[in-house]
C-alpha cells in the first residue's frame, strides 16, 4: 500500500474516532480532517472541491429555508392541535397521530427539520394533558427515521445516495422505499400502543380542556401561510417531476426557497438564512473531502474488492451484508460519515463487474436510515430530540431509548431483508 493511502487511512480513523468520542464538535473535527487531506497533499485542492457534493448541500439549505419560513406561520402547531382534537384528547391516540405526522413530515421535509418542529408542539400538548412527554418523543424519533427512509429528501443518507446516483430519482425512492416504510410504520404502531399506553394517562377534564381549544388562533400570519404552502407544494411537485424537468433535486429546493424569499421580501431573508444549520452543512463539506482522500488513494476500491471476495460476488449475500452492516453501524455511529464511505465503495463494486447495483443502493438506504433507530446516537434526529428534551428537564437516557429502539430497529431490518430479497433478489 502506498504511503499516501496509509496517511489517508490514519487521518480517516483518527477523525472518525473523534467524531464518535463527541469531545470536540463533529463539524470542527470533520473540517480539520478534510483540511489535513489537502494540506498533506493526499488530494489537491481542485480534486477536493470536485468531491464536495453541492447537490446534497443545496438540497439541505433549500429545504431548511423553506421549512423555517413556513414554520413562522404556526401551521405545524395548527396541524398538531387539530390532530390532537381529532384524537378527542386521548393521549394514546395523540401519540399515534403525532408519530404519523412526524413520519409523513420526515418523508417530505426531512426528518431533522420535522423533529425540530414537532418537539415544541409535543411539549405543549403533553403539558396541557399533564402526561409524560418522553413516550411521545421516543415514538417521534422512531417515526422520523422510518418516515425519512421513504423518500430522497427524507433522511441525510438518502439525500447523499440520491445525489451520488443520478438514476435514483425522487420517484424511484418513493416506489422502492415507500412501501417498506409504510409496512414498518404499520407494524410499529400497535407496538407503540402496547409499549406506552400505561405511561400516558390523563383525566377527562384535561381532555375536555383540549377539545375546547381554538386552534385557528395558532395561525399567526395568513398571508405568509398562503405563500409558504403554495411554494412548498410547488417544490414537492418539483421533486416528483425533477427527472422530467432535467433538474437536480437541489435546484428544485433552492428555486423553491428563493421564490418564497422573493414573495416574502428581504426582512424575512436574514432570519431565514440565520436559521440554516450551517454546522451541519460544513460537517458534510468536511466529510466529502475526508472521504475523497480514501477514494483518490485507492483505499475504497480495495475495500470494495475485499467485500466482493467475502461474499463471492453473490448479489444476495452482498445486499444482506450491506443492509445489516449499515444498520448495525448506523445504530452506533453517525450514519452520515458511514454512508459517505459506503457510496464510493458500492460505485467501485459496479466498476468491478457487479452489474445490478440497485439492490445494494436500497440496502444501504434502508440499513443506514432505519439503523439510526438502534440507539440514541444513531441519527441526527435522535440526538437533536434528546438534547431538546434534556434541556427542558426530561432527559432521555441511552439505555431508556435503547430498550425500545434497538429491538424495533432489528424488527425493521428483518422486514427490510425480506422485502429486499422478495423484490430484488428472488
Amino acid at each position, binding site marked *: 500500500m502506498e504511503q499516501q493511502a496509509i496517511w489517508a487511512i490514519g487521518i480517516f480513523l483518527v477523525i472518525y474516532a473523534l467524531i464518535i468520542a463527541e469531545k470536540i464538535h463533529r463539524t470542527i473535527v470533520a473540517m480539520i480532517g478534510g483540511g489535513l487531506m489537502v494540506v498533506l497533499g493526499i488530494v489537491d485542492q481542485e480534486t477536493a472541491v470536485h468531491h464536495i457534493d453541492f447537490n446534497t448541500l443545496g438540497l439541505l439549505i433549500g429545504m431548511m429555508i423553506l421549512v423555517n419560513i413556513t414554520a413562522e406561520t404556526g401551521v405545524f402547531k395548527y396541524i398538531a392541535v387539530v390532530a390532537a382534537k381529532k384524537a378527542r384528547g386521548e393521549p394514546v391516540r395523540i401519540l399515534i397521530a403525532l408519530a404519523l405526522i412526524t413520519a409523513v413530515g420526515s418523508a417530505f421535509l426531512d426528518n431533522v427539520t420535522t423533529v425540530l418542529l414537532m418537539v415544541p408542539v409535543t411539549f*405543549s400538548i403533553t*403539558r396541557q394533558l399533564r402526561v409524560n412527554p418522553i413516550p411521545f418523543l421516543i415514538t417521534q424519533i422512531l417515526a422520523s427515521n422510518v418516515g425519512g427512509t421513504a423518500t430522497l429528501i427524507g433522511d441525510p443518507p438518502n439525500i447523499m445516495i440520491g445525489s451520488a446516483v443520478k438514476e435514483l430519482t425522487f420517484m424511484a425512492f418513493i416506489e422502492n422505499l415507500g412501501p417498506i416504510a409504510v409496512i414498518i410504520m404499520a407494524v410499529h404502531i400497535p407496538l407503540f400502543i402496547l409499549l406506552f399506553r400505561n405511561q400516558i394517562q390523563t383525566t377527562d377534564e384535561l381532555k375536555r380542556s383540549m377539545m*375546547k*381549544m*381554538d386552534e385557528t*388562533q395558532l395561525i399567526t400570519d395568513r398571508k405568509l401561510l398562503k405563500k409558504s404552502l403554495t411554494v412548498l407544494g410547488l417544490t414537492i411537485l418539483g421533486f416528483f417531476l425533477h427527472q422530467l424537468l432535467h433538474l437536480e433535486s437541489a435546484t428544485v429546493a433552492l428555486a423553491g426557497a428563493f421564490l418564497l424569499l422573493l414573495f416574502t421580501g428581504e426582512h424575512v431573508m436574514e432570519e431565514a438564512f440565520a436559521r440554516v444549520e450551517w454546522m451541519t452543512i460544513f460537517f458534510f463539506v468536511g466529510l466529502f473531502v475526508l472521504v475523497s482522500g480514501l477514494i483518490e488513494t485507492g483505499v475504497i476500491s480495495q475495500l470494495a474488492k475485499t467485500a466482493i471476495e467475502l461474499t463471492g460476488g453473490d448479489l444476495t449475500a452482498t445486499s444482506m451484508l450491506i443492509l445489516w452492516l449499515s444498520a448495525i453501524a448506523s445504530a452506533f455511529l453517525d450514519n452520515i460519515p458511514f454512508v459517505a464511505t459506503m457510496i464510493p465503495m458500492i460505485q467501485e463494486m459496479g466498476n468491478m463487474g457487479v452489474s445490478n447495483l440497485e439492490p445494494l443502493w436500497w440496502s444501504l438506504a434502508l440499513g443506514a436510515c432505519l439503523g439510526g433507530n438502534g440507539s440514541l446516537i444513531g441519527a441526527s434526529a435522535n440526538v437533536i430530540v434528546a438534547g431538546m428534551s434534556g434541556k427542558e*428537564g426530561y432527559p432521555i437516557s441511552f439505555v431508556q431509548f435503547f430498550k425500545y429502539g434497538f429491538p424495533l430497529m432489528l424488527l425493521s431490518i428483518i422486514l427490510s431483508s425480506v422485502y429486499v430479497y422478495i423484490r430484488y433478489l428472488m
Partner: protein
Amino acid sequence: MLTYQYNQDIIRIRETVNKDDVEFHIQVLKEKPFVDHLKQVQNFFEDNEVYTDVLFYAYADHEYRVIVRHDYYTDFILALMKHRLLQSVKWEKEGLTDSEQ
C-alpha cells in the same frame, strides 16, 4: 412574594398552583388593544429558547389557559406588567396572600 393588581374591567386572572407549575386562567374583557398585548407576551415566551417556560392555550371569547413553570413565574408577571395587562406589581413579605394585603 410577588403580588399584582389589574383592572377588572379589562382582564380577569385566576391562578392555581400545581406541583411543577402555576396555571393561569386569563380572560381579556376588552379586546382592543389588550388581546394584542397578551399575544405579545405569548410571542416573547414562544420565541425564546425554552419550550416549557410559559405555555399558552387559546380558547373562544379571548380566554386563555397559561401554564407557567415555577422558575418563570416572575418573568411572566413582569411580562404582563410590561405589556400593560397589570396595573401594579409589588414585592410583599413572604406568607402574605393577596387578600391579606
